[in-house]
């Protein structure tokens, strides 16, 4: 039975429900249970010394010690690999653990990394403050400026990094060009597609080497677990798994079970996130108090054409700016909202709202905020899967002066 189908654009859609429910899972499970058990063991026992030796000599695949993996992780990894159309997936304790785990495994002193500058501020911080301590140099160039990226490439460049869409400006990257640039110079490429999800975009289909997610967001989907994942080829990821076993950023069996459970409704949830995102972005665009809306599904978004060509939908994250408002006046809108809760993170069933200037950039200088495009009057809304009209009504009342 062929349950893997993709649309021409490389995103999941038709048949994805089957994949979400069944991919990666054994048809017949232990005890004939319909769902996977949660295997909490910290270690796994061998029946004899010979069994230990067989394992060491790789004659038998099995679990060894909890830091190297567990049965719940295997199922989730196979499900995520199937959803991304990738060969292999490695799950981590968080999205940042996945990012750090991949970079630490792939880079050596003297290597260089180039990334597009619109990105999660902790990813940037890790590269500039910590990778640098290990002799890896990072360069950032303007998002979407492929010429600038190419100009920065040297024989020491080992990795090209971008998000797509980016956070919080939701710029969509031309993945064909991105992957092509990597191939041309034999440099590996990484896309953080947390905001897109495989439902809307599958970067591996474009020839990107690695796709990374904070699975805490849409993949887990219920704001109740932390997880990260990297998907790519088994060969390229071998060193990543090996190093993770040493660094220890593994996820727990309980969490992984919840992630697997969340993935069962992933395609269904994404339909509503996409619907809410589009409807609310259109509502905000028409609202007199809104100065600007960043949403790739709107025709006025700078990368709308590219988004339309490559994405199945545009997700639930919307960034917008309040007209003629300083940060305090902007904060008043946030404080008046009734349904979305104020908090960092995104992608869960509950809508969340935040002011990037306050939530993530409060201790930055105004110059630095300006450099990263974080305006004082900017609001980031993560649309959950609530009823569309309820959310619009709520925003309408919050925007009344």
């Amino acid at each position, binding site marked *: 039975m062929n349950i893997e189908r993709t649309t021409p654009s490389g995103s999941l859609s038709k048949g994805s429900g089957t994949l979400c429910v069944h991919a990666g899972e054994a048809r017949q499970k232990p005890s004939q249970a319909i769902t996977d058990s949660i295997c909490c063991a910290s270690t796994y026992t061998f029946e004899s010394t010979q069994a230990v030796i067989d394992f060491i000599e790789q004659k038998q695949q099995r679990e060894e010690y909890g830091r190297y993996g567990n049965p719940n992780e295997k199922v989730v990894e196979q499900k995520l690999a199937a959803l991304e159309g990738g060969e292999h997936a490695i799950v981590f304790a968080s999205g940042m653990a996945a990012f750090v785990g991949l970079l630490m495994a792939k880079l050596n002193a003297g290597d260089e990394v180039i990334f597009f500058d619109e990105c999660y501020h902790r990813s940037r911080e890790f590269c500039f403050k910590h990778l640098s301590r290990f002799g890896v140099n990072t360069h950032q160039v303007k998002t979407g400026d492929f010429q600038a990226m190419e100009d920065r490439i040297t024989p020491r460049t080992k990795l090209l990094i971008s998000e797509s869409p980016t956070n919080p400006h939701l710029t969509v990257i031309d993945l064909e060009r991105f992957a092509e640039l990597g191939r041309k110079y034999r440099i590996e490429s990484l896309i953080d597609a947390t905001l897109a999800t495989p439902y809307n975009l599958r970067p591996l289909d474009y020839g990107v080497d690695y796709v990374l997610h904070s699975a805490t967001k849409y993949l887990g989907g219920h704001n109740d677990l932390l997880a990260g994942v990297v998907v790519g080829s088994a060969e390229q990821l071998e060193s990543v798994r090996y190093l993770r076993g040493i660094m220890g950023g593994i996820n727990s069996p309980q969490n992984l079970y919840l992630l697997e459970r969340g993935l069962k409704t992933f395609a269904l949830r994404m339909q509503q996130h996409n619907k809410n995102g589009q409807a609310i972005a259109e509502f905000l665009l028409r609202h007199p108090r809104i100065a600007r809306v960043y949403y790739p599904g709107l025709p006025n978004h700078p990368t709308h054409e590219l988004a339309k060509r490559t994405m199945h939908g545009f997700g639930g994250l919307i960034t917008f700016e309040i007209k003629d408002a300083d940060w305090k006046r902007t904060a008043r809108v946030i404080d008046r909202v009734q349904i979305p809760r104020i*908090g960092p993170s995104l992608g869960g069933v509950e809508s969340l709202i935040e002011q990037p200037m306050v939530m993530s950039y409060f201790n930055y200088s105004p110059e630095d905020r300006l450099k990263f495009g974080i305006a004082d009057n900017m609001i980031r809304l993560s649309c959950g899967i609530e009823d569309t009209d309820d959310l619009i009504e709520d925003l309408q009342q919050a925007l009344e002066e």
Partner: protein
Amino acid sequence: MKFRTRAIHVGNEPDPATGAVVPPIHLASTFIQPGAGTWGTFDYSRSGSPTRANVERTLANLESGCGALAFASGMAATHCATMLLKAGDHVVAGSDIYGGTFRILHKICNRSGIEVTLAAAHDLDAVKNAVRPNTRMIWVETIGNPLMTICNLPLLAELAHENNALLGVDNTFATPVLTRPLELGADICMHSATKYLAGHSDCLAGVLVARVETLFKELAFVQNATGAVLGPFESFLLARGLKTLEMRVREQSRSALNLARWLADHPRVKKVYYPGLEEHPQHQLASQLLDNGFGAMISFEIDGDLDSTKRVCESTKLFGLAVSLGAVESLIEQPASMSHASYDAAARQRFGIRDSLIRISVGLEDVTDLQNDLEQALSR
């Protein structure tokens, strides 16, 4: 707020202690009290616990009741409802109720001197004729199992109340997404929350929701006294499942309607029982009582005997062979040998549960994949 929004937010207010967007799972079995003889909100977790109380608020809201009680299983919930009765009382129950309910009425309640008569719940006259002066409860399923009959809840509520009896409705197959029996006059709404409400085949749970406060208090008294309460982990999983309930039920109902239409045209299928089909005897009533779809349970008869029907059930690749229903995974079963095996053969015969009957629970998989799977199984 609309159903979908309430399912996400009512009973899921952020934790005041930490701001956690998802309330914590409180495992405590007991709670420290402000003083001897002075009781706090929670005392001992059989009587109530924070995690269970949260999901009970969500459930009461979604079913339009004044209060809800969460139980260790659907049968624990049904049993609690029957504990309102006393020796000498009489129950009229639908003739195509769940086998477990049949068993509790005929083999447990009878020990306490409670009498039971079964009547076709979709036939108001049959129910009327079964009512006696000592009838204290009428118990029906919104959508009957396994023949998917639809009963007229508003008229049954009138009948029950005219006779000083309660109307209890097992709303498991319909879910509050399709209909809310308490809004139609029922007194008690029951769920095996193991099915659609939790929705992921990974926890057992039962629910009773009461329309009025006095009845709720009586039920809460029985629950506390008998103790079959839902644990904190299951309460959390149930609450998590409720957040996607509306989307799941709509999508699964949409797929089911497509499959029912396809099955109706299939040469090996003799009869399809699905309230969304125009040929279903209560299709009109179903259209009035149900919003957002006709549910995701379908029964159908094939041209086969017990063994060849069994073979069809055993040869699907995507549909799992199992009892239970309502989850993201599609399931298939043969009522005669599985879900309704606790009916004796004579009762099955009488109530039209034939050996060639197959029941499917349509999950969240892609509908084309499900159709292809049934096609290959039927061609064996």
